[in-house]
Structures are given as structure tokens and as C-alpha cells.
């Protein structure tokens, strides 16, 4: 059996959760993997708790929805509270924006906080690219997608006038991830 990783991104509508999931999936394709992704849709994608899920696999994916996430990426408290319940097995990882989320202690669960939002605000003067900072962190810490695959996915999926900004944000995330190690 090849490796299958299930990833759930969650946060508030407007934080770029859906785009983040799409870019992560696209990066998986760039790495030659099988990928399936699904996201919140309709009103819930525009303001309230919002979710995007990606499965990245070495083999074809039979059931394309996340059944149990290996990695939870949380960008808001409400979303963290809602989805942390599904986490807790060995080897699972939570990556969260430390400005947005206060974590609960769960024994055995690796929970890593990063200043994604504040880095985006301070270094790039645009908190909207916190999602790209997070993706950089995720790529570096979990290795579910390669650096080059991520950067090229951002290039393909972000309109030209925001491209440089988003790539810079991902690079900052990659650096934050490296520092963590």
C-alpha cells in the first residue's frame, strides 16, 4: 500500500481556505500524486466556519472525502473547536495560526502554532495571504507536497497581479517551517 494523507484546512470564509485547499491539491498533482479535494460551498464558504479537504495519495483514491484527517490546519478558533474532535491518533499533526487559535491540550497529538497571520501583516502588509504562509509551513513541516510543486501551484492558481505577493508569502511560510525544525 502506498501512502495516503488526508488533510483538512479550516477557518473563516474569506481567509482563503478554499483556495488554499485547491493550491495544495494542485501541488500534489505537480508531485505526480493522486489527489481528491472537496470544499465548503455556498453561504458557509462566505463568512462562517469554512473547510477544505484534500487527500494526497500514491495510488488512485476510492472514497474521495476525508474520513479521518492526518493533518488539521486551523486558521480560526471556531473551526479549530469544531474539527479538533476528529484528531488524536499517533502521528497526526495540527498546524494552526497562533494569533487566531488557543489550543486544547491533547496527549500524544502534535500541535504546532505559527505566526502566519502576523507575519503576513508585518512582512507583507496584507493579512489575506496568511493562507499562503500556512501552506509554506505545511509543505516544510509535513512534506506532503514539495516546495517546487507548491510554488508552481500558486503561480498557476493566483491572478497575475497578486502572484508575487502570494509567492513571497509561501516563501515566508517555508522559512518559518524550516526554523521550527
Amino acid at each position, binding site marked *: 500500500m502506498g501512502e495516503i494523507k488526508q488533510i483538512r484546512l479550516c477557518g473563516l470564509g474569506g481567509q482563503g481556505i478554499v483556495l488554499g485547499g485547491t493550491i495544495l491539491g494542485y501541488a500534489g498533482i505537480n508531485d505526480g500524486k493522486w*489527489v481528491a479535494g472537496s470544499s465548503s460551498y455556498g453561504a458557509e464558504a462566505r463568512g462562517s466556519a469554512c473547510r477544505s479537504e484534500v487527500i494526497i495519495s500514491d495510488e488512485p483514491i*476510492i*472514497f*474521495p472525502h476525508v474520513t479521518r484527517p492526518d493533518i488539521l490546519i486551523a486558521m480560526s478558533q471556531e473551526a479549530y473547536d469544531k474539527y479538533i474532535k476528529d484528531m488524536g491518533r499517533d502521528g497526526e499533526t495540527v498546524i494552526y495560526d497562533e494569533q487566531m487559535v488557543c489550543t486544547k491540550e491533547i496527549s500524544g497529538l502534535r500541535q504546532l502554532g505559527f505566526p502566519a497571520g502576523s507575519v503576513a501583516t508585518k512582512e507583507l502588509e496584507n493579512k489575506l495571504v496568511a493562507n499562503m504562509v500556512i501552506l509554506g509551513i505545511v509543505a516544510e513541516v509535513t512534506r506532503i507536497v514539495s516546495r517546487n510543486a507548491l510554488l508552481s501551484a500558486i503561480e498557476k492558481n493566483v491572478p497575475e497581479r497578486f502572484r508575487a505577493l502570494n509567492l513571497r508569502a509561501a516563501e515566508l511560510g517555508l522559512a518559518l517551517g524550516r526554523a521550527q525544525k
Partner: protein
Amino acid sequence: MAWKEVRSALPAGNYYYSGNEAAAEGAIAAGCRYYAGYPITPSSEIMEWIAVRFREVGGVFIQMEDEIASLSSVIGASWAGAKAMTATSGPGFSLMQEGIGYAAMTETPIVIVDIQRAGPATGQATRVGGGDIMQAKWGSQGDYPVIAISPWSVQEMYDQTINAFNLAERYRVPVILLAEQAVGHLRERMNVVEKIAIFNRRKEKGAAPFGAGDDGVPPMPAFGEGEKLLVTGSSHDDYGLRKVADPLVQARLTARLHNKIVNNREEIIQHEDYYAEDADVIVIAYGFTARSSLFAVEAMRREGKRVGMIRLKTIWPFADSLIRDVGSRAKKIFVPEMNRGQVAGEVMKYTCCDIIPYNQTDGEVIHPNTIMGELRRLL
């Protein structure tokens, strides 16, 4: 032969598309250059994608005032010689029923993509459903032929849209891609190959446009090609002349419309077998539910349970002989559906085997754990 090999519209390679985007690209690959539609959740991304891509490939895109007009426009475009399509969801599909009957009667090749959502009526616009199975076959008056295909992946949204156009052109029939919201909005890896086979409608100078060919499918001229052409939804003879009180004309026409699909069903119907050979309990599933089912069946096979699955890729015409065969081998047949048993009822028509329907109409997909739970009770 009217088959030919053409270069794919997209460069060969892997893409990360949604099912809706894949259907739009499949249409473009098949040669569709006319789209008329009215936006409706959860199908709207198809028309959005088409609207952008038609500017690149040179197609005509029109947003119509409603779904009745959309389908009428598509039928007209087809008679002008274009490969034409529309996409919608349940409520819009209901409005299209009149046009579907008309397209079937006038033997107009068209493709309709129906991204099913939870009904009845406007139901739950953003939620999944699978309740349009019977509507696809019996929504318009009279007995008429359609072909309906149930894709289960983004890859099939692309491949089967190409197939839908080929079938429509081959048999001069409306073809419905009967997908579900969960497939339309799914994103997956989609592979595009360099070349695909496409079928373009047969033309024959001076031939009767409604006369029986060898296989019951007449050649089809387009308006403007110099043929004398009458097209009517009323009963008509081989040349399209209205004959609304002639029993022989009516009998021949309705029989031929029916037989051109039924007699070619071996060529049309597609299905897949998974572990069905020695299974005691066989799941008959289609669309997204077949993915949940296969996941469940494979998990239970690893436990040594004798379960299997048949996936119906074609819903209409219904795979009657396949069901007869499966019914003679299995002890029980389990039919999970996102409706109140529309395919289960068809299955019951063709076998006396014990049929156990599972019907979930809560706007959510059927989870593999649900199917595993049900199967355990049946073993």
C-alpha cells in the same frame, strides 16, 4: 465511418479540475461549440467555464431567459449543424422536460448535464441528491428513448461527456450526463490524452432525414445545406411530413425510436464488476455512491466477507440482462441510493432475487461506514 481521431483541446497531461470544469472540457474536446443555459446551483461552474473557454476555442455561448428556452436553443443549434449542450440541476431539468421529449421525437443530438441536488422542487440547492433518475427517462410524455450516464469521478466527467456527445451523434438522441453535486464539485486528478475518438453525425445527400437506416438511425442534414428539411414534434413520416392521424406512420415511428436504442444496447451500456464473481451479497451502485460502496466492499473483502459490487455506468437504457444474470447468482442484492429507490425499483423488474434498497435523502453522500453497517446485517 463517421468516427475519427482528433487532437484533444487541452494539452495531454494531468490536471486538477472539478467535475463541472471537467464536463465543460469534455464537451469542448468532443467538438461542442454551442452552449445555451441558465445558471443554477450546483451546475453553474459548467457554464462559467464554457463562457471563458468558448472565447478561446471559438464557440457560441448564450445565457437564456430560462431552462425551457435554453434547451430549445440547443435543439435549434443542433439542427444548424453544431454540437450543442446545456447544463442544469433538478429544478431546471424539470423545465427542460418538454424539450427533451421534442429532441427525442425529432431525433436531435443534444447533451444535457444534470448536476443533481437534493429535491424535491428547489429542495436544498447546495446539497447532494440523486433523485432525477426517473425524471431523466419518463419526464416527458409518451415513450421515448434517452441515454443517461452516471459518472463517478472527475475523470469520468471528462471522458463520459465526450462519450455523451459520441452517443448523441451516433444515435441521434438526447444524452443526459446524470451526475451528482458531490461529483460536480469534487476536485481530482484528471488525465487528458493526446488524441480522442469522436463520432460526427452521418450525412447523406437526398436521404430521408427520418427514414430508417440499417441500424434505425437516419442520416441528419443541417439547415442551410440545401436539403428540403421539415422538423416537427408531431408524428411524421420519413421526410418529416406531419402525419397526425395515420396509425401506420405513428406505429413505425414510435417503434423505431425505441428500437434504435434498445437494439443497440450492447454497444451503449457500460458497467464494471468488482469481486462479483463469487459474492453472496452484491451491491448495485452508481455515481458517487459507487465509490462509497467500493470502499466498503474492499474493506469487507479484506475481512474475508463474500461481498461484491456492480457499478452501473449507464442508467438508461437500463442494464436488464446484466441484472438478470447477477440476480441468478447472488443471494441478495443491495442497492444504496441518494433517492427513495429509483434504481432499486428497476432492478426488481428484472430479477426475483432478494433486493434490499437503502435510501438516504438527507442532502449528504452515503458514507462507506453506512454501507458497511448495512452489508454486515445482510451477511
